[in-house]
């Protein structure tokens, strides 16, 4: 059984059908990168996996559990599925330590006495141990995004979703975030990424999924997909991304 099973998912916003029958499996430990043009439904698919959006029809299962916005143990489910956003979404009124420990403490995952040690541990993993007492506003964009990743890691998720996490960063800050994600990939974390970083997708992902017009248009190993795209849409997308 795949960790994530997506079957014929449809999603409409108003009159616009964003997802038109998406099906996809993600195995445990796999790193799947979703690429595609703006408006192709990549981010919506991620939001549906985390139940931030409900699907209109079809089904998403994570660890065998059917996902929808009114599932009874939604809060527990979300503790197992971390999501990192394009805009970091750190809490500006909380220092880095509290940003990281707020959810583990409030959900009873850890005791208060162990909170700082947990924050220090996950910050070390993203290379920001010295920023534990900083305010988010005192950090660069890249550092904020790494703290956002650390905040997710503190919940020990089984699956991580990354929604264009480098898109809002200055080019010189992109590398530090990708490095952290690469390290997570090497540790065996199951990851689904939406990204425009083609180099990263090529080097780190086990599988590339190309979405076009709300559908999975083409998928396969990065080497094959980038070298021999089967559809003119993917060929054109790769050419335009170069």
């Amino acid at each position, binding site marked *: 059984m795949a960790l994530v099973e997506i079957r014929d998912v449809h999603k409409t916003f108003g009159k616009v059908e964003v997802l038109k029958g998406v099906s996809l499996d993600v195995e445990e430990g796999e790193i799947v990168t979703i690429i595609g043009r703006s408006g192709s439904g990549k981010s919506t698919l991620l939001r549906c996996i985390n139940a931030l959006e409900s699907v209109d029809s079809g089904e998403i299962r994570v660890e065998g559990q059917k996902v929808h916005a009114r599932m009874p143990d939604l809060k527990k489910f979300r*503790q197992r599925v971390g999501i990192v*956003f394009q805009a970091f979404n750190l809490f500006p*009124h909380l220092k880095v330590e509290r940003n990281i420990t707020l*959810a583990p403490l409030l959900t009873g995952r850890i005791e208060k006495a162990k909170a700082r040690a947990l924050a220090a541990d996950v910050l070390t993993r993203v290379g920001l141990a010295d920023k534990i007492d900083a*305010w988010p*506003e005192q950090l660069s964009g890249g550092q904020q995004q790494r703290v956002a990743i650390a905040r997710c890691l503190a919940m020990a998720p089984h699956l991580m979703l990354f929604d264009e996490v480098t898109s809002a960063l200055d080019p010189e800050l992109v590398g530090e975030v990708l490095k952290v994600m690469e390290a997570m990939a090497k540790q065996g974390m199951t990851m689904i990424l939406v990204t425009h970083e083609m180099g990263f997708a090529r080097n780190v992902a086990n599988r590339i999924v190309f979405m076009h017009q709300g559908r999975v248009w083409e998928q396969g190993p990065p080497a094959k997909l980038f070298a021999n795209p089967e559809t003119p849409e993917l060929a054109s997308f790769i050419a335009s991304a170069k």
Partner: protein
Amino acid sequence: MNFLPLWRYQNQLIDGAIVTLELTVISALAGLVIGIAGAVALKGRITPLRWLVRGYIELFRNTPSLIQIFIVFFVLPNFGLKLPAFEAAAVALSLYFGAYSVEIIRAGLDSIPRSQVEAGQCLGLSGWQVFRHIILPPALRNAYPAVTSQFVLLLLGTSLASQVAADELFHVAGFIESRTYRSFEVYAVICAVYFAMAMSFKALFAVIGLAAFRWPRRR
């Protein structure tokens, strides 16, 4: 101009100022609770409750405060609720301050981006935890300047309670004037007292604001 005849009334003036402060602080605290509860209701899903809060806001923001005090003091006894002057003024001013606070705090809550809520939800927090720990602190910071301005207006507005003979500063001033016939001196003194209290509160709120909202503002 002669202020000396007022000297013997200094204790009454001090007592009046204390009553004014008590009336202001009690009404502001109660009004703030109404404000937060009303703002949450306005953003909630219960439509009749939203209508009720909206009606309350419009009623209290579009009628004179003096009439609101009169209704609580003179009209409610007809329905079995008889309150002394101070309590009646406190109830009316709380409702008045609450009506403005609801809108101010609602605007503060609206200023928090939806993405902050989603970030909290995605960490597995409950609706209440997201509200208490993620939305409310920055929302209160954004609302704080308007709430403190409204507080100073409330302080000055407590003088209306003199019309139901609550023993606050303005009522005491009327009493002293009737005894001394020193209108200019009496009202100059209480004007200075109101001014001093208002400026002191502004300074106090600035210090509280710095202590309570220590995180840096977005660049």
